[in-house]
C-alpha cells in the first residue's frame, strides 16, 4: 500500500505510460486484420525506434542538465559516412573506432564551445548541425558509401538472434544504462542538480561546466552510435541518414516527462516516448491513411496523449 501511493499520487505523470497502453490497445483492435499484432510488426516498431531511443536516452541527460543538442541527427549522418569509409579502407574494427571517434570529437567541440567559450548550446549545436552535414556531404561527395562487412551489419543494426533483432538489445542496453546512471550514480544526480538550479549547484560544489561538457559528449557519442546502427541497418553510409531526427528525439524525451528547462528527466519515460512515436507512425501507415492524413493524426494523437497527462486548472 505504502508503495503504491507514489504511483497513484503521480498518476497524471504516469499517464504517458497509460497513454502508450491505450494507443497500443486501440491499434491492436482496429488494426488486427492488418497484422499489427504480428510479432514481426511489433519487432519492426522496435527496429524503427531503436536509433531514436538511443539518442533520446542521451538527450534526456542533455535536457536534464539544462542544455540542448540539435546536432545529433547530422552527427548520426556524418558517422554513417565515416564508418562506411573506414570500413572500406581498413575493415570493420577501424569503422567502429572511426564512428566512436567522430562522436567524441564532435561532442568535445560542442562541449568546449558551450562551456568554455560560453555560446548557448542551441547555437553551438545548430551550427554544428550544418558543419557535420556539410562535412558528410563533402567527404562522401553526397553519394552513398556501401558497407560490405556482414559482421558489422549484423552487430550494428542489421542482425537478429532468432526472431529478435539486435537493435532491441542496443535499445535495452542504452535504456538500462541511462536509467541506472541518471537515477543511481552521483553523476546523474549532478546532471539533475545542474539543470535544476545552476547557481545552487555551483554553490554546492558541483563543477557545472564540467557536467555540461560531459553531457554533450555523451549526446554526440550516442548520436554516433545511432549513426553506426543506421549504417549497419542500411549497409551503407549516407549523409541524409538521421537527418531531422533531433526533433523526434527531443519530442520523445519531452513526451516522457523530461523538461526543456532542465532539472527533470526520466529515461524510462523517454524510451516509452520514443516507442509511442514509433507506434503511432507504424499504426498510421498500417491504417492506410494518406501521408497528409498521417501527419494530422499524429499531431492530434500526441496532443491528446499529453493533454490527458496534464492537470486541469
Amino acid at each position, binding site marked *: 500500500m505504502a508503495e503504491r501511493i507514489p504511483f497513484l499520487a503521480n498518476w497524471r505523470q504516469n499517464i504517458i505510460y497509460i497513454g502508450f497502453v491505450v494507443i497500443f490497445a486501440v491499434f491492436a483492435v482496429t488494426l488486427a486484420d492488418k497484422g499489427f499484432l504480428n510479432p514481426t510488426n511489433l519487432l519492426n516498431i522496435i527496429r524503427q525506434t531503436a536509433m531514436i531511443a538511443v539518442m533520446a536516452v542521451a538527450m534526456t541527460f542533455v535536457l536534464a542538465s539544462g542544455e540542448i543538442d540539435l546536432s545529433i541527427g547530422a552527427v548520426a549522418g556524418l558517422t554513417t559516412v565515416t564508418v562506411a569509409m573506414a570500413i572500406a579502407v581498413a575493415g570493420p574494427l577501424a569503422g567502429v573506432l572511426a564512428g566512436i571517434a567522430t562522436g567524441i570529437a564532435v561532442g568535445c567541440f560542442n562541449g568546449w564551445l558551450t562551456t568554455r567559450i560560453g555560446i548557448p548550446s542551441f547555437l553551438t549545436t545548430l551550427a554544428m548541425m550544418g558543419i557535420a552535414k556539410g562535412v558528410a556531404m563533402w567527404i562522401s561527395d553526397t553519394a552513398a558509401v556501401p558497407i560490405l562487412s556482414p559482421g558489422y551489419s549484423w552487430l550494428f543494426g542489421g542482425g537478429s538472434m532468432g526472431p529478435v533483432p539486435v537493435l532491441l538489445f542496443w535499445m535495452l542496453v542504452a535504456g538500462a544504462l541511462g536509467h541506472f546512471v541518471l537515477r543511481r550514480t552521483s553523476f546523474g*544526480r549532478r546532471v539533475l542538480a545542474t539543470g535544476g*538550479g545552476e547557481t*545552487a549547484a555551483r554553490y554546492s560544489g558541483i*563543477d557545472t561546466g564540467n557536467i555540461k561538457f560531459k553531457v554533450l559528449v555523451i549526446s554526440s557519442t550516442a548520436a554516433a552510435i545511432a549513426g553506426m546502427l543506421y549504417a549497419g541497418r542500411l549497409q551503407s553510409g549516407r549523409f541524409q541518414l538521421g537527418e531531422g531526427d533531433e526533433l523526434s528525439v527531443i519530442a520523445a524525451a519531452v513526451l516522457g516527462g523530461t523538461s526543456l528547462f532542465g532539472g527533470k528527466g526520466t529515461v524510462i519515460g523517454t524510451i516509452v516516448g520514443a516507442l509511442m512515436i514509433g507506434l503511432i507512425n507504424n499504426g498510421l501507415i498500417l491504417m492506410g491513411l494518406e501521408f497528409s492524413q498521417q501527419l494530422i493524426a499524429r499531431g492530434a494523437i500526441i496532443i491528446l496523449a499529453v493533454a490527458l497527462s496534464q492537470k486541469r486548472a
Partner: protein
Amino acid sequence: MTAVVMKGISKAFGGVKALDNVDFAVLPGEVHALLGGNGAGKSTILKVLNGVHKPDAGTIAVGGVPLTTHTPEASRAAGIAMNFQEMSLIPTLTVAQNIYLTREARTVRGLLDDKACEANAAEIFAMLEVKVDPKAVVGDLGAGQKQLTEIAKAISQSSKVLILDEPSTALAVSDVDRLFTFLRKLKAQGVAVIYVSHRMDEIARIADRATILRDGKHVITAPLADLPIDTMIEHIVGKRSKGLADVHRSDASRGEVLLQATNLSGPHKPDNVNLTLHRGEVLGLAGLLGSGRSALARVIAGIEPATKGEIRIKGQRVAIRKPADAIAAGVALVPEARATQGIIPAHSVASNMVLSVLDRISGKGVVDRAKVQAIADDMIQRLSIKTASRDDAVSTLSGGNQQKVVIGKWLATDPDILVLDEPTAGIDIGSKSEIIRLVRDLAAQGKGIIMISSELSELLTACDRILVMADGKAHQMIDRASLDDPTEPDPGHRLQAAERRLQIEIQKALAQETQHG
C-alpha cells in the same frame, strides 16, 4: 590556533567595491557574529571564504593552512560548510537529495542510496525537533521549511567551520532556540561558527564575539560583553538607536471595516478562518512554521483562490480568483519568498518596481518612462535601497536590498489593504525600524495592514491586534495592549515581557491543535 584568518580581503563587482581591505578572524569553539547593514559585504566575504567568489586581493588561511584555490570544493575540503542567504537549494530535487548533494550515501556497490539519505535527513530534523519531510520536493516547500533544509544541509557536513548566513529570517523563535542548542553542542566540539543575523536578540543570546562591517570596511571586532546593544547598532547603522524599542506606538484610530473574511478556507490551509480588518489598524498573524499564516495571505491575495468562505472588502463581496482581482480590489501582498515570488532577478530595479502598477503608469498601453524613473527613484530614496543605479539587475543587490525592492514594488501600488509576509526578512536593524515606522504611518493614513512575522518583537512593535494561528486555524485574537505590563518603565524590558506572553499563547494554540489532531 585560529580557525579562519582572512587578511586584507578586497572584492569589487564592476564599479561597486563590496569589500575593501577587510580583516576577519574566527577562533575554534566560538560563535562569531558577523554584523552590518544591508549591503555591508557580509555575504560577500562569506562567499569568498566558501570559494564561490574569488577575492581581488587578500589571503585566507583555514586552520593555519593557506587556502589558495577558490572553489566551493576546495573550501569544503578545508572543512568549511555554509548555509547561503539566497537559498541555494535545487527546487527539483527532494529535501534529502538536496541536503546530501555531492555527498550522497552509497550502497556497498557504490550506488546512490536515497533511502539512507532520507533516514539521515530525518535524524537531523528530529534532532532540531522540526517537521520537514525528507522526501518532499523542495520546490513545494514554504519558506520556513526551505530554510530548515538549508540549515540541515550545512550542519550535516561535519565541518570545522560552519557559516550560517541569515539562517533564521523565516524561523520562529522556538525553532531558533533549538538551532542554538545544537550550535552550542558544536561549539563544545571546537567548531567555529560564523553567524549572520539582523535579529539583535539572537546575537545577544548566541554570539561570543562579533565583527561589524560597514560599506565594505571593517569597523570593529570585539567580545560581545564589550558591545552593548546600542553601541552595536550604532556601529552597524552609523548612528545611535535602540532598534525596535525606539519605534513609538501611538494608538490607532480604527475606522470602517476594510476586509472581512468569513469561514475562509484554502486548498491546503487556512481552515475556516474568520477575521476583520479595519482602516487604520495593523493586524498581526502569529504562529509557528506551517501554522497557515502564509497560506491565509495567499488566499486573500488570490494566489491560491479560496475553496470555501467569502471575502468582503469595504462591505462588498468580492470574488478573488487571481492576483489581478486582488490588486483591483486594493489588496497587495508582499510575499515571503523573495527570490521566486518577489523579484525577477535578472531585471532591473526599476522594472521590478513598476511591475504591479504598469496599467497606472501607461497611457494607451505605452509605458511612461518618466513615471517609471520617478517611482524607482522615489522608492530607492524612501527605503534607502543601496544600488548603484535603478538600471542595475536586482540579482546584483544584497539580500536585504532585494527585500526592500519587493516592499517598494508593493508600496507603489498604493493599496488599501497591504498584506506583508515576513516583510523585514534580511533587512538590517536600522532599516527595520524604518519599515515598521512606515507600516505604522500607512495605517495612520487610513490603510489596513496584515502583517506576518516570525520575529515576535517586530509583531509586537507594529501591530494593534494579533491573531494567533495553528495548523491553519485561527485561535485567538489578542489585543496588543493587553500584552503590556504598564508597571514596567523601561520600554526594552516591556517589549521582552510582552514577547514572552505572546510566545506562551502560541504554544497554547499549538498544544490545543495537537490534542484535537
